[in-house]
């Protein structure tokens, strides 16, 4: 056991715990905060995998932009724990059971296959910004431009939908 494994292990624990807290918390604001913690821990995983660019983009995009939007909306609506009425107990149980059995089935399926591949950690330069940037602006330049158009249309769409008639 080396320091990387300890790091990855503790990050995983944080990731799963905070993700669980997202769906358990009654207060939406707490959910949002736990989700931010989840994103941070996932960024930590990226750093361990030496995907620096994605790690920081993950923080900027998810933690810095998307979650702020969520917070905004929740705060504007003033949602508290009372706003979510209790769901049917049986339906809830069914949800948990089906989600859990899906996990079980796939884990069992993976378990039967003998997978030996290793993921390279702490080294390798494919996750560095220079490498990704060159690829992004040569091979993937068309999808890149298209995604900017997607953004623009999403922005226009959000404004149109959100505007009061």
């Amino acid at each position, binding site marked *: 056991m080396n320091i990387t494994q300890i790091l990855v292990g503790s990050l995983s624990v944080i990731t799963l715990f905070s993700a669980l807290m997202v769906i358990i918390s009654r207060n939406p604001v707490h959910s949002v905060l736990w989700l931010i913690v989840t994103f941070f821990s996932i960024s930590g995983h990226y750093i361990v995998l030496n995907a620096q660019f994605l790690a920081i983009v993950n923080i900027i995009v998810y933690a810095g932009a998307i979650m702020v939007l969520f917070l905004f909306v929740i705060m504007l609506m003033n949602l508290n724990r009372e706003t979510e009425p209790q769901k049917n107990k049986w*339906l809830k149980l069914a949800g948990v059971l089906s989600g859990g059995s899906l996990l079980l089935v796939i884990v*069992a*399926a993976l378990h039967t296959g003998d997978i030996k591949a290793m993921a390279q950690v702490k080294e390798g330069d494919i996750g560095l910004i220079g490498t990704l940037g060159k690829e992004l602006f040569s091979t993937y330049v068309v999808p890149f431009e298209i995604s900017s158009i997607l953004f623009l249309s999403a922005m226009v769409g959000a404004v149109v939908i959100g505007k009061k008639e």
Partner: protein
Amino acid sequence: MENVLQIVWLIPFLPLLGFLVNGLGRKYMPKAMVSIVGCGVILASFLMSIWVFIHVREGGGYVADYFNFIVVDKLKIPFALQVDELSSLFLMIITGVGFLIHVYSTAYMHEEKPEHFGRYFAYLNLFVFSMLLLVMGANYVIMFIGWEGVGLCSYLLIGYWFKNVAFNKAANKAFVMNRIGDLAFLIAIFWIIAKVGNANYADVIAFAKAGKFGASDITVITLLLFVGATGKSAQIPLYTWLPDAMAGPTPVSALIHAATMVTAGIYMIARSNALYSLSDLTMHVVTYVGLATAILAATIAVQQNDIKKVLAYSTVSQLGYMFMALGLGAYSAAVFHVMTHAFFKALLFLGSGSVIHAMSGEQDIRNMGGLGKKLKITSFTFLMGCIAIAGIPPFSGFFSKDAILLSAFEENKALYAVALLGALLTAFYMFRLFFITFTGKFRGTEDQAHHVHESPLSMTLPLIILAVLALAGGWVGIPEVFMKGGDKLSAFLSPVIPVKEGESPGHSTELALMAISTIAVLAVIAFSWFRFRGYQRKGEAQGLAKVLENKWYVDELYEKIIVKPLQQFGSFLNDVFERSVVDGLVNGVGRAVSYSSRQLRLLQSGQVGSYVLLMVLSMLLIFVLQFFLRK
């Protein structure tokens, strides 16, 4: 060399440009502008064609490869243009005659509204573009594009006066008949590609020369190509559209249905001569179909009273001659006749246009007569055309027709006799037409008599130029008999069309044949002079004349044996099959869907949560099936 001819794409591109400008700007451009654009692009193409011709004569052919048009796995169809001896000759004919006809049209169509005037020139330019593409393509696929293009333009121009229902029907007829031939052509192309692997002329010819085609393959391919050619070049059995195509404006008839489009079939077969030479069966079929067409059309022409119909059947007949020449292996004679025919037939059509113009749209020759005095230039040039087509030395028609007759003689004496009969018929109906129209007394109304006038210069000038060409155009192919080192044309074409081997019948025989045909033709002309110089309108034609006037009832026959049964079969399908089976199926599907959806609606609770739950459960099921139960 290579770099210079790489720009041959300009030749078809310029008319395309003219089409776009005229077509898009037809509502905004004045007539003068349309005329300048329309004629200018063709003139430019013509000049380039001359330039290309000179280059080709000096340095041989060239294939300009531009880009890959179709790439499917190993099959590569390049967009490539080819200029060689054959195509450069055709280029000059198309653009040269085309230019004259464009100029002629500016005056002929002057009564049209500006918008329609622009549409007319746009179509005309598009037609020239398609024809040039057809001729210049370096493979059968590009040729097919042009092939379809000329078919389309023919349809558009025949139906140019689209408010007239009969004209539209004629356009449809031409279109449908062409489609039948095109289908055969298309199958032939597929067949070639399946065998050779691509459709480039060079590769196909090399493949054929190497003898890699099977005997049945080559027969089927050439026959299919021939069927394609009969559609475009109006041969039996697909010829009936051409006389009806006279519904279009007269310059169109001159350009499309005499000088260019109908020769596409000839060009195609001459281009594929390496294939045809391999199949005796096809050659015989081509010969006899050509001969039959020539005679049949000539007999019909004898009794027609519409000035343009006479010329139309004459065209069909002359095309028959060309096919006969092709079938006999005298490819260069056929090409030679294409060229001379382009000159004198364009001349005759334009002359008839001038007559029609003078008569304010009257086309029935029974209502004309004595026009020679008022239309001096027209009648003189028309006479030149008649002499040329009848085949009197030293006019161009003589040399080209004689080359064909000679090759018929070499093959078979009986064939020669029948062909000669056709030639005499040609002389007879052409001079019948000439004498009835231009000599004797005027038989029209007072109004028309008052109105008759010579056409403007822009119409007569092309006539004069074409008359000169009709006289002199044949001199490039003067046979050896008259001039040492003659027959320059076949020598020029020899890289593309191999000179026919075998001993020639000897100069004395050749001279004797020429003398026979010339004397016979002169006799026929004299006969028609006596018969028709004082033509008077008679009653209904009787007996054979009536059959001829009604074109051997071929149209009626087609109607009876093809159109009617098909229509009945169609209505049978409509009543029985459509009503019970198809409708039943459609309605049954609808009912089944609506019933089952009524049952399935119970699942649609409208709750997102339950949908997602169902989705997850299905995923679970799929995974279980995939991983654990499959083995």
